[in-house]
């Protein structure tokens, strides 16, 4: 092992990799960082995937929803109440309202249109929302403090780790299980799955399909809002954060398979691991690695690791 570390350090000239090999707690922290980043991204990506799974619309505005979530947490938690959790709840609620307006006002008209029309319509929403955010919150970068109960760090035996990040690692799987139970075990979830399969049949059976679409859109958007809210303490709300996050979400959702909850979960973990270890081993290029994975997946299995090939497209 020592000779390997020496080889990496001196012959390969890679101090990052050497540190990972020689310092287990450093490697462990990277692992935890990967998971906490992954779980935050999962919450957002799951919303995007859920919406695509049912509505068949790739929503570019999902990133803007995330940004609104973060801004709302800033306003409610930082400026008005001082309670972080109240802020997150407000972010979820605010996004639910926005989702109803946008789905009923715009998206419901484009489900039958071409993909180009849909992409561009969601892009129009991105443009409008990003400026609305600028009008409301300006162009400053805001900082949101960690919730009072989670300011410290927890002793994990190997090393100390920030409580809040640990909380994210727990909350991600909880949401995944919740979503899974919801789609597999509830009546609304069953109808949702039926709507993905055959919309017309479901409608013929007397189910109000538009309500299901609205419901799914709300759920997906609320996830983006909550994800943005939870990210606010370490990802300061600022203009432009919507354009970056949406690309990360695309990577995760496509790697995992569009429409699959567990696919997004695994996709997010892969993203987290590649990003965090990548930034240690090849510093500065971590932003490029996720795209390489995306390319690899699109070329080998375009429908993603957990997705199903679509009829004529595969």
């Amino acid at each position: 092992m020592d000779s390997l570390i020496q080889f990496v350090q001196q012959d390969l000239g890679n101090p990052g990799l050497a540190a990972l090999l020689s310092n287990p707690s450093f490697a462990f922290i990277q692992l935890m960082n990967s998971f906490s980043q992954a779980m935050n991204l999962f919450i957002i990506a799951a919303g995007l995937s859920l919406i695509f799974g049912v509505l068949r619309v790739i929503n570019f505005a999902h990133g803007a929803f995330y940004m609104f979530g973060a801004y709302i947490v800033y306003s409610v938690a930082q400026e008005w109440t001082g309670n972080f959790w109240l802020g997150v709840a407000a972010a979820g609620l605010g996004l639910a309202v926005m989702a109803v307006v946008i789905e009923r006002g715009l998206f419901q008209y484009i489900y039958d249109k071409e993909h180009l029309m849909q992409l561009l319509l969601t892009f129009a929403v991105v443009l409008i929302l990003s400026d609305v955010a600028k009008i409301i919150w300006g162009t400053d970068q805001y900082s949101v403090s960690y919730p009072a109960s989670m300011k410290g760090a927890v002793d994990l035996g190997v090393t100390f780790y920030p409580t809040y990040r640990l909380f994210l690692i727990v909350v991600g799987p909880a949401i995944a299980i919740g979503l899974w139970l919801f789609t597999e075990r509830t009546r609304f979830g069953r109808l949702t799955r039926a709507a993905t399969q055959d919309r017309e049949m479901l409608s013929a059976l007397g189910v109000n399909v538009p309500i299901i679409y609205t419901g799914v859109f709300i759920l997906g958007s609320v996830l983006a809002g909550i994800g943005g809210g939870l990210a606010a303490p370490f990802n300061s709300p600022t203009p432009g954060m919507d354009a970056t996050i949406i690309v990360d979400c695309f990577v995760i959702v496509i790697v995992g398979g569009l429409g699959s909850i567990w696919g997004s979960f695994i996709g997010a973990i892969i993203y987290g691991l590649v990003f965090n270890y990548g930034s240690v081993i090849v510093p500065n290029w971590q932003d490029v690695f996720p795209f390489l994975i995306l390319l690899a997946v699109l070329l080998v299995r375009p429908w993603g690791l957990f997705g199903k090939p679509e009829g004529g497209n595969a």
Partner: protein
Amino acid sequence: MTGRMTRPVLAACLTVLVLLALVPLLESNYLIDLFNEIMIYALFALSLNVIIGYSGNVSFGHAAYFAIGGYTMAILLTTYEWPLLPAFAAAVAFSFACSAVVAYFCTRLTDIYFAMLTLAFSMLVWGVAFKWRLMTGGDDGFVGVDVPAFIAERVPFYYFSLVVIATAVAVLWVICHSAFGRALLAVRENPVRAGFVGINTRLMRWWAFVVAGTFAGIAGALFAMVHRGMYTESAFWPESATVLIMTLLGGMYSFFGPAIGAASLFLLERLTNEYTEYWPLVLGTILLAILMFLPEGLAGLAQAVRRQILRGR
């Protein structure tokens, strides 16, 4: 649709060309730069339309080839001090090569997966431009491009740009109206039937992608010279979306539509910026309006109006 321009179209083209050639007589630096940029974006939008309007695939990463052309031009002219012609040829060749490779992979997919793959490749290009600081200047941009002395002044450069773009558009027109262009339309309208008729649909889509990428590279190379710089925003995905909007606004089912779209959008942006900083808000609203009420763009609107008038007679 014949392989030759109808007389009114030819007359309109020549008129536009003459008017563009007269622009420097106005002796306004502002207007010369404005028209120069409009022409560049018009070429950019026309190139994208080869993929969208003619082969029916939506590329969501077309900015990548614009940026590749631009960065190659900027780096060769400045860092390596190449003369104009070799640098230009290399920029075009490199855009061609990159789009050829990407097209090979993208044409394996269709529809939404095609769009996503083009997006992924463009983000890769963006990532390289953003991170390869030594070569591209990273997020500060590549500033201070050395434009060769004989076109360094505004007016000579304008004419250089006009000649390059007019030639490029003419070549694009010929390509789109050749047997190849017609075959592409067949692929767009009905890929399965086109396949049965004996058209190699994948090869056709590959060529469409490569032609589009190469001409976007030409537009990018000119952009780098007119701005004396190249910036990562040019490769970022919203730029790809903007050129898509230009194409859509003008009308993707007509050859010249995207150029009109580019010009209108560009002028509108300049005009809006005089009054408000919220251009994206205006653009978003316009886009919503087109999608809801004008799905065939300005060109489609013009045709509908003409039909209406003809019917009235």
